[in-house]
């Protein structure tokens, strides 16, 4: 890390001579240390999946959720620091509630993404604050229109058809690119998302992890919720089996070449 000791990384209000803000890049690093979070937008819904790494067997299963709900139609998944995430999800809920209070219509994906982006960005402007160590995935459904946005610690926010953040984001992105998101059904997307999380999980580094899966789609009545248990089990089974066959598939491909 060449930036250390140069003095250019002490404050978020200091640029390095080549025009970078190191504090923002460090925040990105905090995200890159986290368990993977992915989002898939298909034609009839959005799926969120998170690899929640557990540091202890003593943790209660399903506790410390990393996929949360910010207003009934908004799914909120994150990679990065949980403390910062909880702050941001509170902000997102407040924004959604305030918007509804003003306009009596649910906040559109574009607006909540913009507002969250602006909020996160404001924390890259002042020396008294630090940027959020979180990448946020927002999955929403407005008027049967599925939307997926990702907000990065810099405040950059973009709409995606598939996105990933955290440790396995490179591998996950390659996997997502192989999917035909236009023709995939949301149920299949759940299974694929589970498969991708399982495939990017590095069991040599992190032994314990828990899969979190949620969706917003017609089947969930346009409401963001965890996927039903039977579908969850089906997805896990698919992921566990696919994990092995996928490796074989890769080897075969190498043989062909």
């Amino acid at each position: 890390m060449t930036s250390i000791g140069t003095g250019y990384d002490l404050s978020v209000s200091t640029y390095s001579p080549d025009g970078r803000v190191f504090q923002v890049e460090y925040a990105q690093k905090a995200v890159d240390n986290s368990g993977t979070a992915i989002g898939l937008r298909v034609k009839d819904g959005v799926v969120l999946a998170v690899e929640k790494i557990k540091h202890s067997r003593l943790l209660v299963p399903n506790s410390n959720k990393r996929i949360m709900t910010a207003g009934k139609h908004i799914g909120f998944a994150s990679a990065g620091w949980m403390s910062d995430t909880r702050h941001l999800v509170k902000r997102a809920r407040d924004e959604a509630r305030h918007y509804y209070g003003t306009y009596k219509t649910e906040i559109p994906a574009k607006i909540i993404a913009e507002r969250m982006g602006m909020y996160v960005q404001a924390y890259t402007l002042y020396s008294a604050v630090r940027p959020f160590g979180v990448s946020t995935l927002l999955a929403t459904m407005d008027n049967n229109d599925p939307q997926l946005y990702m907000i990065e610690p810099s405040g950059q926010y973009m709409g995606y058809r598939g996105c990933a953040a955290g440790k396995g984001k490179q591998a996950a992105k390659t996997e997502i690119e192989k999917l035909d998101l236009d023709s995939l059904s949301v149920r299949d997307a759940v299974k694929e998302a589970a498969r991708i999380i399982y495939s990017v999980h590095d069991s040599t580094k992190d032994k314990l992890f828990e899969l979190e899966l949620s969706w917003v789609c017609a089947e969930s009545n346009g409401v963001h919720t965890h996927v039903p248990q039977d579908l969850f089990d089906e997805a896990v089974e698919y992921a566990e089996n696919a994990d092995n066959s996928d490796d074989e598939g890769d080897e075969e491909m190498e043989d062909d070449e």
Partner: protein
Amino acid sequence: MDSITLKVPHTTERPAEITNYGPTTHISQPSVTGTSVVAFKYKDGIIMATDCLASYGSMARFRNETRMISVGNNTLVGMSGDTGDFQHMKHTLENLLTHEYDMDDGQNMGTRSIYKYISNIMYGRRSKIDPLWNSYVVAGVENGESFLGFVDYYGTTYQSPTIATGFGAYLAQPILRKYVEGHEDELTEEEAVRILDDCMRVLYYRDGRSFNKLRRAKVTAEGVEISEPYPLDTNWTIANYVVGYGS
């Protein structure tokens, strides 16, 4: 040249009675109002009815309003009184339910909790000497047990197998006392509907703020069901013989 006089539009002029000084004032009377709510227990749960009218004083101003809402999974709330205050209550409840949903703890708001919440709001507002000008009837079925409760603008509460608000307290309540109380567990839906329609018919005959377009709702173990608006058959042939009452 003559000067041109422009009148400030009435919307930007402050009405004389609203001052920037003096004691705090609150609204002391309802403006757009809904009349009675009638509800009672029957074999499968609770049945309730309200008409679709929101009056502006004695004027039949809005004739397609719904005064019953479903809150959460298995709760029905009926309202009489100021419709603006009812809208406020609806938004408050919606916020509460969204908040509860966001918690994601597998709990859901039960009828008793919603009843308590509404009654606390009502009592809280009366304590600010700024009451919400409503009576609420809260109904639900929880663990096979039906619940029916009432709250008014003082925050007064009571639970009863039959409840009628407003004019209904005078005209429908005696009918319910006779035909419902003591038989709550035996009344079929068909019988309940007949009794309810009779109550609403009497109210339509005698309550000047009522309307012959109403909705019926029921809460059972299956959840809440609010009907589409429907009219009642009425017979006015004896109206000629009615004398007195200032006519």
